[in-house]
């Protein structure tokens, strides 16, 4: 128990250092921009906005992935499993095709958030009625909703003109350069609310690892807690997606990796996943900015390419230690 506590503390101390390093990294070299010039200050603000966005989005995805993996008791569970990515993409696409984006910069994130949120609400309502939020029902309903929405999205894409098609595709790849502080602030508040809700359910999340029936025996009011956790995870995910698009892999890989590092107890896992999820995405985004500078690659490419092999390595390493007691 003690080594994992030490690891947790080490992880928590590394996070701010990593964030500052990423803030300093730029295509022109390492170090903060010259703040005495107007351009320097603008550049710094842009980078700061980007680091904050990356952190908030990564934290939200890892946090809700962590909570969903606990209640769905499925290794493949991640924030998008309940259909939010398809829902949000459809919402974003609709605002682009209908021209609503031209009215206000908030239209696109709002559209993505609303449709993504509605999708999750629908998935939760159907699963609650059909199977008392049993993991299998939730996943099944999520997959069905996802494919239905993807088809709708394809329909929209087929009918869209080239320009709209291009912006929809770019949005779907994910991008962490937020357009305004106001937007980041709104999203941060939403994510903070759902984080507070999830953190307040740490004992319940632990008990739910034993299945919802046993959790109820242990004193978890599952009829309230399950919809609450689902709702909070959904809120965090749709807020994150509305800000940055569908960045894959963070919500799947970060909780899994940390479970192997700090253990499955949510009292450590949830804060660790939140902080490391944020830091991981910021690092990946920094790489996305710099690797092919001046060109930028979608951050989702980096998250998958760097997180995947690392996770496989952990899987193999832990497997070996289990084999030789």
């Amino acid at each position: 128990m003690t080594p994992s506590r030490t690891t947790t503390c080490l992880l928590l101390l590394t996070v701010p250092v990593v964030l500052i390093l990423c803030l300093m990294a730029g295509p022109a070299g390492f170090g903060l921009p010259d703040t005495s010039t107007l351009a320097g200050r603008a550049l710094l603000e842009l980078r700061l906005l980007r680091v904050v966005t990356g952190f908030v989005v990564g934290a939200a995805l890892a946090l809700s992935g962590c909570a969903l993996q606990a209640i769905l008791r499925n290794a493949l569970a991640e924030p998008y499993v309940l259909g939010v990515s398809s829902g949000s993409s459809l919402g974003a696409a609709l605002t682009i095709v209908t021209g609503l984006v031209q009215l206000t910069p908030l239209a696109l994130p709002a559209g993505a958030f609303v449709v993504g949120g509605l999708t999750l609400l629908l998935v939760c309502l159907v699963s609650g009625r059909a199977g008392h939020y049993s993991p299998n029902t939730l996943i099944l309903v999520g997959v069905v909703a996802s494919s239905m929405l993807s088809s709708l999205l394809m329909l929209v894409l087929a009918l869209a003109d080239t320009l709209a098609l291009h912006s929809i595709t770019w949005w779907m790849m994910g991008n962490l350069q937020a357009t305004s502080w106001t937007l980041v602030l709104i999203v941060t508040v939403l994510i903070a609310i759902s984080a507070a809700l999830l953190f307040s359910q740490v004992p319940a999340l632990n008990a739910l690892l034993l299945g919802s029936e046993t959790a109820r025996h242990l004193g978890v009011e599952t009829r309230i807690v399950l919809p609450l956790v689902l709702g909070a995870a959904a809120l965090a995910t749709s807020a994150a997606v509305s800000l940055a698009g569908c960045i894959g892999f963070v919500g799947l890989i970060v909780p899994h990796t940390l479970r192997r590092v700090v253990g499955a107890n949510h009292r450590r896992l949830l804060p660790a996943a939140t902080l490391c999820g944020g830091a991981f995405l910021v690092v990946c985004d920094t790489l996305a900015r710099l690797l092919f500078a001046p060109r930028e690659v979608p951050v989702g490419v980096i998250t998958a390419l760097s997180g995947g092999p690392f996770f496989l390595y952990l899987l193999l390493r832990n497997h070996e230690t289990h084999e030789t007691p």
Partner: protein
Amino acid sequence: MIHLEHIHAAYNGQPVLTDVSLHLAHGECAALVGPNGAGKSSLLRVITGQLPARGSRRIAGGDPARCNAREFARHVAVVPQDLPQDIPFAAYEFVSLGRTAYLPRFGTPSKADHDAVQEAMDVTGTWHLRHRALTAMSGGERQRLAIAVALAAQPDILLLDEPTSHLDLRHRVDLMALLLRLNRDRKITILMVIHDLTLASQFFSRIILLSQGIKLADGTPAEVLRPDLLEAAYGCPVNVIPLPDLATVCVLPALAST
């Protein structure tokens, strides 16, 4: 402690319990036996309030269907048939799950929580395993830990659903001895579903026989474990062989001669 009066219950319209009345006094200990599908687990689910039922039920002074889960869990603990075994928890963390009903929001355990966990692990002989991973435990150790989880909640009533089914001879006897000790020393009321009738006759002074949702018999092993009753319940001829030295019986299915 457990009062069920004229309970009727159904799963998807199919009746699973018909007019079952059952009373267990504080500190009593009883075995629940019967063939597969007799309604044993359903009866436990009626007691925990998970299965809606007609009739009156009072468990530890309250109606389980109305009581909130947190309050109920402090009085009634359940040891399920099998718990997931792949959770990467150390034994201590696992047993701590039994304290869920006492933890505040955000879940920081207090000294009282730690003491209750340590005591539950002491009683079940698992304290020395506390740092070991759950995944590395044997079947017997895991079953003792499952009981420790239940005990950590400091319940008045312990419901067990076939805890001995995966255990070998020695572990079965050890487990039963542990349960009887808990019943004697702490006056924990115990109701246990068990398939092994011989083991039931050896350790329980009261046996309740269910068949097709009906309570067929309720009494001492001698009163309940009768060939005619068992044949009616299980639908096969049964030999009940008295073991005079042990004051118990051995129950064997009678094989039809070919």
